[in-house]
């Protein structure tokens, strides 16, 4: 157990420089977004008011107030989120391959540590998952600050204030990364964990059987996807499930798939992987 925690810590420290840069990019870009986009929104509003000779009140009735949604939809705001997402998805692969193909073959050291291969597998999964959650937590922390900055920058007459939960519901990307209820949060990130475990297992296939393993890995991903979506696919075939049945089945299949993937991945790492 201690070694597992040490490994998680070790993996996090290894990624910390890139991770910190991601946080910094997000912070700078989003705050810059708030300031720049607010300014241009206000300029646009003033131009329209001048052109159409509208009072602030008339502007509001015609065009609606200025709300945070405009900011949340801007590239400066969404861009760093997308960048972080891409970086971490990429890191799902990199976290394994860098040990094999890095300048030094660290995988030798990793696999001859007096710890179970399952711990090694889980430590990599845990560290990625923790870093994903860390980014989400960071967004949750800076979002109210950005909202406050926005609210203070827009004159009250033009402002249409939004609460944090409304902002996250209204924006498609924010609602994806910060689900509106805790249950939905567990489900979304549960699915995320499942997908990661399936990808890890596909990587283990490749590391064990090389070219043949790529095919096996792809096949495994395909089978997993079909299995997970089987209840939905059955509905196309005109068999109908009640929503709670559908949910129950997908939950069960999801848990089984995740368990199976972790077991299979760790088994391959223990018995089939070649260094």
């Amino acid at each position, binding site marked *: 157990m201690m070694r597992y925690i040490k490994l*998680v*810590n070790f993996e*996090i*420290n290894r990624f*910390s420089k890139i991770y910190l840069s991601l946080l910094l990019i997000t912070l700078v870009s989003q705050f810059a977004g708030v300031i720049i986009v607010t300014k241009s929104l206000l300029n646009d509003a003033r131009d329209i008011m001048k052109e159409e000779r509208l009072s602030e009140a008339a502007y509001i009735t015609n065009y*609606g*107030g200025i*709300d945070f949604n405009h900011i949340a939809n801007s590239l400066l705001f969404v861009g760093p989120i997308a960048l972080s997402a891409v970086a971490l998805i990429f890191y799902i692969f990199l976290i394994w391959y860098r040990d094999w193909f890095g300048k030094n073959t660290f995988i030798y050291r990793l696999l001859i540590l007096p710890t179970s291969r399952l711990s090694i597998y889980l430590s990599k999964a845990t560290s990625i998952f*923790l*870093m994903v*959650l*860390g980014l*989400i*937590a*960071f967004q*949750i*922390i800076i979002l109210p600050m950005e909202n406050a900055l926005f609210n203070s920058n827009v004159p009250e007459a033009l402002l*249409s*204030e*939004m*609460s944090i*939960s*409304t902002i996250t*519901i209204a924006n498609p990307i924010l609602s994806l990364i*910060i689900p*509106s*209820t*805790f*249950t*939905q*949060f567990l*489900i979304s990130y549960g699915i995320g964990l499942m997908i990661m475990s399936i990808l890890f297992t596909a990587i283990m296939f490749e590391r064990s059987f090389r070219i043949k393993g790529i095919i096996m890995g792809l096949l495994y991903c395909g089978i997993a996807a079909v299995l997970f979506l089987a209840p939905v696919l059955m509905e196309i075939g005109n*068999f*109908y*499930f*009640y*929503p*709670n049945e559908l*949910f129950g089945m997908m939950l069960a299949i999801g848990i089984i798939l995740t368990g199976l993937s972790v077991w299979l991945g760790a088994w391959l790492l223990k018995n089939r992987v070649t260094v």
Partner: protein
Amino acid sequence: MKRYLCSIIIGMVVILSIGTYYVKVASSASSLPKYTFKTLEGSDKELDPVIINATLQNGGAFYEPLTIESNTTTYASERSYLENLTGRQDHLIERLVKEHRSFMRGKDSISSLYEDDDFLAYAWVNSEYTKSGNMEAKFDIGLLEKKDEEETSFQIELPNQERIMNIDVRDVQLVHSKIQVLTMIDVNSNNEKQTKEVHLYTIDVANKKVLSDKTLVSETFTDPNQVDFEMPIDVAPSQPNSMVFISVNKGVNHEDGFKEKLKESKLLSYNYETEKLETVKKGPLSLDVARSGYADGKNLYAVEMKSGKYRIKTFDLSSQTLTSDTELDIAANKEEQYTAAFKNGRVYFLLNGMNQEGLFTYQPAKLLIADIKTGKTLYKGETVINKKNSKSFELYIEDLEIK
């Protein structure tokens, strides 16, 4: 310890930030205003079967669905994930699912269902469009004999489907063991002419055959002319019903807008038993009444506003005569919209505090429950909020359902 700093910080931030966020989300639902009806008159027991579906809004920046059931407000966010997953469901379908779970699979359109003491019938048109743009359609037919839960389900080709562009099931009846499916159809056309039809299909369940395809109404027109078929709101869509009304409204589309000017209209009645289609003669049951009325299989109810009061007129469907005409004890206001429901021999009348344009007046919603025949007020009340500073919230009422 210093080596673990990074991980410890990430772990702490994750737990604190995400934890706090969701604790706040959970508690914010309970901080939302709770709406209840304050009884002004009558017994609040009358509120028990009343379900009001609404949304709480705040200038477009906030949107939260809620239900006031038996005088208790529940927000969607207070419900469990599974309850929200199933969604808001008609209580009739809810009951049928409870009683006949296997039969009711995939059947969620209330107007496609028919229920009497012995049978539960279902008819739906399953249609899809091929790449060439043609429609391929099949009837989904289901019949359940309640006594021994014997289920018959099958699909049959929709007759003459090549000439149909769009089909909508409006009523399903079981008459002499045959399923009757009343549909409204848009006919395929490759020129400017448009044709709308009302078809009645008779389906023999025992032999799995479409016995007949009867065209009740067929209207062809070209733009800017317009024809619409309308039926009164069915307040008991699954109940046995021997008669339906169809109003045929012909009009002209305005060039600049889409508002149609009524040119000519007629009201038709069809009797499933006698298979007679008749034009309803001008009389107390006028076209306007039927268009905006509510039918429950036996009676047709209409709401009228007359000299500052709302009136409820009741017509007997088979004789098409006025059987009662009562006044409701509630002030009529042109500015306000009403929602009405008819059930249990009562009229449920909700003035929703919203004007015709859907703008809010911040007035409380008023609910009146009265006996249909006598017009006697059984209950009267208006919404109150349990919080003082909830003025900026607007209650948008979507529908009124009676258990």
